[in-house]
């Protein structure tokens, strides 16, 4: 454990514009870094209740550098903010951040991601050099938030949305796309068959390459899919090399306030990264270039 850490604001190249972040280094860093990939609306890299900042400090105390960054169009990063989808997540931003870490001499990477941040990292995994481990909290299973809501919504949900339809809204391509996705999700009969489960495909990819994974399942839009495909998800995580794990945290976190949930998530992620480091002693030996 180290108790002296340094914070440094950074700007680096993204695909279309520059990206911003804060690099947090321990007193004696190695060439392993944690990349914190978060999604949650338009939050800058500190996040709600400064969660990502608190998390970065904990990793630095563990002796590992951590980068938290703003997605394109968010916080201090340039470019346009885009709402990610299951097919088109923010993978390019994750790759840009990983490339920046590589340029800084961090050749081994552990990703800690939430929701579409986790999904973007899983999507980007083939392009993340030196990826050793991944913590994925509440990732989507097979669709984005809108489709997941629509698929499991009851009649009153649909009636409320139909009531709000205005001709001007139908002219907005973004809204039209979301409406189409919602209707397709509800109408799709795939729930009764084994569908193409994107999350499991990604987990299998990581398992084949020997990348350690901790999967955390909470509440929210993707909960019905976690329950629906519980067996498939568990079987997929079982194929991941140890240390690996699956934690269904929905009951454990019920009734806790947001900061307590965040503290729990930070502790679990830090413990997992600590386990991965213990499993690969070589990761703790080499200083960055």
């Amino acid at each position: 454990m180290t108790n002296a850490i340094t914070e440094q604001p950074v700007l680096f190249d993204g695909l279309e514009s520059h990206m911003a972040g804060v690099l947090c280094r321990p007193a004696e860093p190695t060439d392993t870094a944690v990349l914190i990939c978060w999604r949650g609306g338009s939050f800058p890299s500190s996040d709600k209740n400064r969660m990502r900042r608190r998390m970065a400090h904990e990793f630095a105390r563990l002796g590992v550098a951590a980068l938290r960054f703003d997605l394109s169009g968010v916080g201090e990063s340039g470019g346009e903010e885009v709402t990610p989808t299951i097919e088109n997540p923010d993978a390019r931003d994750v790759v840009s951040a990983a490339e920046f870490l590589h340029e800084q001499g961090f050749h081994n990477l552990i990703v800690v991601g939430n929701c579409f941040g986790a999904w973007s990292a899983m999507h980007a995994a083939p392009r993340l050099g030196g990826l050793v481990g991944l913590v994925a909290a509440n990732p989507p299973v097979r669709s984005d938030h809108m489709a997941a809501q629509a698929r499991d919504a009851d009649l009153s949900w649909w009636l409320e949305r139909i009531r709000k339809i205005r001709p001007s809204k139908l002219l907005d391509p973004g809204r039209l796309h979301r409406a189409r996705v919602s209707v397709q999700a509800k109408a799709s009969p795939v729930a009764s068959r084994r569908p193409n489960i994107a999350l499991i495909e990604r987990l299998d990819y990581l398992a084949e390459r020997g990348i350690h994974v901790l999967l955390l399942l909470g509440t929210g839009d993707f909960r019905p899919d976690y329950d629906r495909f519980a067996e498939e998800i568990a079987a997929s995580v079982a194929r991941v090399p140890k240390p690996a794990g699956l934690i269904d945290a929905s009951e454990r976190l019920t009734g806790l306030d947001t900061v307590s949930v965040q503290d729990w998530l930070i502790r679990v992620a830090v413990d997992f990264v600590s386990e991965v480091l213990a499993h690969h002693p070589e990761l703790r030996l080499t200083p960055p270039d």
Partner: protein
Amino acid sequence: MENMEKAGGALSVSVFASEEPAVRLDPVTGHQHVLRLFPVASGHVYASAMVPAEAKAGAVVCSSVGADLLANYGRERALAHELADAGIASVRFHYRGDGNSSGRQDELTFTGMLADAHAMREWLASICDAPSVTWVGTRIGGLVAAASAQNDDSLVLWEPIDDLSWYIRGGTRARQMSSMTTDPGPSEDRPMGWREELESRGFLDLLGFRLGQPLLDSLEGITISGSPPVVARVLVVSFASRRSQAAQVAAALSEARMPVDWHETALRETWWFHDQNVIPFGDLITTTAAWIKGQEVADR
């Protein structure tokens, strides 16, 4: 620079701030984007400057806290770009105890916010030597901007909050609405009032945003209408929300013989509820930047 903090658990860590700023020159616009950890008395302030090639004037943007920060961050960044296009440099920042700045959450107080704003005014002075600046305050940041602006400065207030109770009521009401859709059923317990909750827990959790007692205590009794700033001119921007204190603030400033301009943007904003969708800007940015540029031209 050293700043002792608790990191998650009980142990303290020393957080050092790198003195090295991150700088990027935009090849198209020629604007310089600078990110730095600006040294202040007890730590550092995460600050961002957007500087045009030849800055003729400057603006300091004072953000709000909690959910408002999420709603307005992109808008404030867009304003910085728009101002730079007009030859006006601007600085934005995270208050100490919040965002990427140093300090524990209980260090986030109105006094600290004012001190941070003052530090940003000093940084702006080193970037552009205009004798007066425009202070932009958004929501609770309006209290900071109004208290910081003086004499020949101009003041822009986006949907200003005039008193803390009103702001908290909005948050607790939103929380009640949210709980109606998520709670399994009516509770036997009487819901706590916000002061009671603050007393018992030491903080308010408003839809996942924790507001600490030191901040709320320090904001008690602070209003714009109670002690209107003496400045050159004010623009009050009201959002299309049914509940707003913007008109009250504008009326109080007019009564204090401040020249006040009023703009009502068509942007609808609930302030407390944000989903995954991209937040719109409407005419907010162009109108605000044009007004600030107009003040700068008038000054010359």
